[in-house]
């Protein structure tokens, strides 16, 4: 029904609204000719972006944020995967731990900032511990449901073949659950970035989040907005790269979902 021409047209439509908003901002700014400490016009944001890109602060901050997010993600995702797989296999264990998990999961991850500060002080370790806590739960839940929804016949096959629990995890459970586990990884990765930035905004003097805060405090709206745009681009790239990998690896096996 839809021919390729229409498709490109529909794609172009997506640019109209943002371009119109940016031009409007530019025009309003030019007409009023005021210097604001709150907001800056697009061309100044662009200039600020190129400045911080040239002097290296942008790359430093990006690397710090990504390092904190990815280190935390690898711990949180790894542990979540492990426990999730166990709970998915053993409904007995799952039911026993149900209440404990629900209680601890209800805690907003950010509430651990004060404890992490007590234990680790400022720095990477504090940031990654909170990211690890935050990514642990979505991984756990998604892995659990991925594993528990494996065709029971496959587990019977594994039992008939006399596999032990470790062998059946490696040979049957993980491969069968892999597509959905990858979805868990994608969601956990976006959680990791969100939490890392939040920790930086709230407390940790590191990375893009801290850059945003200090730009605001030193009344440099152009730099602040440049960092915000950059952050959106980083988040989008991370998400798109994982989506692309997911499609390449599993094709039609995974479903698209709209959740964060």
């Amino acid at each position: 029904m839809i021919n390729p021409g229409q498709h490109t047209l529909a794609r172009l439509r997506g640019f109209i609204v943002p371009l119109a908003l940016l031009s409007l901002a530019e025009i309003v700014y030019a007409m009023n000719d005021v210097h604001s400490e709150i907001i800056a016009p697009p061309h100044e944001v662009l200039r600020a972006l190129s400045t911080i890109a040239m002097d290296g602060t942008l790359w430093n901050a990006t690397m710090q944020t990504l390092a904190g997010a990815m280190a935390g993600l690898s711990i949180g995702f790894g542990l979540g995967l492990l426990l999730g797989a166990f709970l998915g296999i053993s409904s007995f264990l799952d039911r026993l731990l149900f209440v404990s998990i629900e209680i601890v999961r209800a805690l907003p991850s950010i509430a651990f900032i004060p404890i992490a500060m007590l234990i680790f002080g400022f720095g990477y370790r504090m940031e990654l511990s909170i990211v690890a806590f935050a990514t642990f739960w979505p991984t756990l839940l998604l892995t659990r449901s991925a594993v528990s929804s494996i065709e029971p016949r496959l587990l019977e096959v594994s039992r008939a073949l006399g596999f032990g629990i470790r062998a059946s995890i490696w040979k049957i459970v993980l491969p069968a659950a892999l597509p959905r586990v990858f979805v868990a990884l994608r969601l956990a990765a976006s959680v990791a970035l969100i939490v890392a930035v939040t920790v930086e905004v709230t407390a940790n003097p590191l990375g893009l989040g801290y850059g945003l805060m200090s730009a605001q405090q030193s009344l440099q709206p152009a730099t602040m907005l440049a960092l915000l745009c950059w952050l959106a681009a980083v988040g989008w790239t991370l998400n798109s790269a994982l989506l692309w990998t997911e499609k390449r690896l599993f094709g039609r096996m995974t479903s698209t979902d709209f959740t964060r």
Partner: protein
Amino acid sequence: MKAVRSLWIVPSIAVAVAFVLLWKYAVDARMVSPVFLPSPERTWAALQHGFAAGALQLKFLHTLERMFYGWICASIFGIAIGALIGSSSTIRSYLQPSLELLRPLPASAVIPIAIAFFGLSDGMVLATICFGALWPMLLATIHGFSSVEPRLYELSEALGMKRTAVVFKIVLPSALPDILAGMRLGMTVSLILTVVGEMLASRDGLGQWILLAGRSFRSPDLFAGLVLLAALGLSSSLLLIGLERWLLRWRTVH
């Protein structure tokens, strides 16, 4: 079946209690420094003390209030805008790409902008919560509105239903599962952003309480705050799950 499943709650609670005992044992045995991890008794005492002084329940209520207002605000905007975008494929083709670009942006990243506009005020906290919690609801509503079974539109046409009747009798109910899931996610985001906002803007609430307790090494007070936050998160999500079960009871019957 249902009775058997709900019976499992008893051993499950017992396991949770066992974890608390383990916590107590670990602290008593000095396996962890009490500076970081107070014993359950001292946490309990801190809770009692806080409530007796009247400070803690006030902070709890402030946090609850902020979270609730921010969430309601986000629900209204998110669902209304989502319904508008979701019901027209033309509007969707104009806005969806921008939304996709903004979606992975951490909500906390807009805090500096909110501070720039509102200062370190309650308004800034509310704006942040509202903005952050809006996304899951907006996206879920768009999804729900745009994925109504086309057969039902044909049915409404064949029955000669009015446009408003189609929205209220067909589109809204079929988008409801998505909307409710979005609202649940939005509630989690609200609580997180409430705590962040209180920490940053020093607004009276549990977020500020745990931050101050942490800074002055009062770990029992810190843990008392965590217990209350967990209670808040748990009860709000249980409430929403209950509401969801009731509203979507047609899904669970067999």
